[in-house]
């Protein structure tokens, strides 16, 4: 049985890579989602529904489609990728950065929704009161809106982390399945699954995947409860 749980170097590599990608993705996605979530929650503007539609696209598109679209845009001949390739010689696709970008795109709509909802729940009358007391818009945001929306922000962060841990379709299309560079946990599981006789390896990776996701969800619950507790102390 203990033989079963001896993790090979490449398996560790996949696990570490996944955690690294998920963390960077969550850290980058969070501030972006806060800004966008705030605009969607508080402002009316022309074309708002269109923006909402575009942001939510990765939620409903098959991840493989998202990956393909990312290739078209960020690939060497894509609108954005071309600039990077020709000016700096940087190839975005099939790299570690591609794995992070794929993770950001698929988790962004989730996080934005969560944050937007929790900002909408913040009583605007409190924000108004803060203004009469002399607070600038930025101060109102950081001292009133954000603290009161904190549970949503935290869940958003964890959601982003957990979603990237599980991202497969967009990653394999846009970042590829390069061991040590882009082979995240889900990709490693997929690879092992294709080859008969690799049940043990597959199982080892699946166990880690399940545990990581569980931990992420438990952490989210715990943090949420703590925030609620501190507000009612």
């Amino acid at each position, binding site marked *: 049985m203990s033989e079963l749980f001896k993790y090979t170097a490449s398996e560790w590599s996949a696990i570490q890579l996944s955690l690294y990608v998920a963390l960077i993705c969550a850290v980058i996605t969070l501030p972006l989602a806060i800004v966008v979530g705030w605009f969607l929650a508080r402002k009316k503007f022309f074309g708002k529904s269109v923006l909402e539609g575009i942001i939510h696209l990765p939620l409903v598109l098959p991840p493989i489609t998202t990956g393909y679209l990312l290739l078209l845009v960020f690939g060497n001949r894509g609108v954005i990728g071309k600039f990077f390739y020709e000016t700096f010689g940087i190839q975005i696709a099939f790299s570690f950065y591609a794995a992070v970008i794929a993770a950001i795109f698929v988790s962004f709509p989730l996080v934005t929704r969560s944050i937007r909802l929790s900002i909408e729940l913040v009583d605007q009358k409190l924000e108004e*009161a803060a203004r009469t007391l002399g607070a600038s818009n930025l101060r109102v945001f950081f001292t009133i809106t954000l603290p009161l929306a904190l549970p949503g922000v935290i869940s958003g962060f964890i959601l982003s982390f957990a979603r990237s841990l599980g991202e497969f379709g967009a990653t394999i299309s846009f970042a590829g399945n390069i061991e040590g560079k882009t082979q995240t946990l889900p990709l490693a599981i997929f690879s092992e699954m294709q080859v008969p006789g690799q049940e043990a390896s597959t199982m080892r990776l699946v166990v880690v995947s399940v545990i990581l996701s569980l931990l992420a969800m438990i952490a989210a619950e715990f943090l949420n409860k703590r925030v609620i507790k501190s507000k009612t102390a």
Partner: protein
Amino acid sequence: MTPALSFHIKLQRKDFTLDVKADIPNWITGIFGPSGHGKTSLLNSIAGIVTPDSGYIHLNGDILLDTNKKKNVKIRQRRVGYVFQDERLFPHYTIRKNLLYGEKNPDPELFNEVVDTLQIAHLLNKKPEQCSGGEKQRAAIGRAIISGSKILLMDEPFSALDVNLRREIIPYLNRVHQKFSLPILIVSHDLPDLLSLTDNLLLLKNGQLLGHGKFTDLLDRPENLELMHESGWYNVMHLSVFAHLESKNMVLLKSNKSNLQIQALTQTIGKDVAINQALKVLIKPESIALSKEPVQNISLRNQVEGTMKDVLLKDGLAFCIVDIGENIIVEVTEVSQKSMCLEKGQRVYCLFKSASLKIY
């Protein structure tokens, strides 16, 4: 005396146009009118939450708004202390942090004085949800003062609290005005509560200013009478405690300026109220009856002598202005007024029960 607040505001609302021009002195001023007639919009305009279609607002000589000069100072720079109807204390801050929100480093003396005056010292480390309605209201007032406001705006400070608690806030407001010399503008649809604080009123109906001045002066004009009558008006008499008649459970109240003297039930005032304590005594015009002679063998404690000054007739009612040392209004039926020949100059006696008195 230069007014503390001077404004002319025109603002189009859904059902009416708000058009008010006034100069507010450094006193407590009440804005009275039925609900939904523009009082809150007026406060919101002064605070900057709403921008009027045209007009100007000057506070202590500073221009907050002048549509002709295209000047519109932002909310956060106006130094207007707004105490909202729903207090709006920040739930995630302690009371202390709430108080310090507008000014992180206030003068320690000022801070202590505010906390003392409003008696909120025991609340400083609590969160708003651990405080009662009255405590939250006082904290909201304190927060506005400490933030360096030049004027306090209060929106319906009485309506959130139940009847008993309402009177609690009134002495605090008086003290605040005296101690910190801040002009206070109070909006309310509750005339007696307003009158317990101030005689200076702005009357607002359908967004229009019907009158501005002392309550007794406003009574002279029929339109004002009608507005106040519709809203449940009161007479206000300014009296002091003269003596406690303990055996009778009554208190004797006298006027400093005239011979006016009234008996009231001890429980409406309180046993512990000191001699010479100034009080406002309110009574509804329709709770007073008139007679041409003193009446014997009647259960009423109060029969006050006075002279008829004027009579206004409307819809079968006669509003009689009677001078009993102060002007009061007595409402009787037109029929009675005519049959008793109650005319100008006639000596009359105003009869009312001690129980009809509201005392602040």
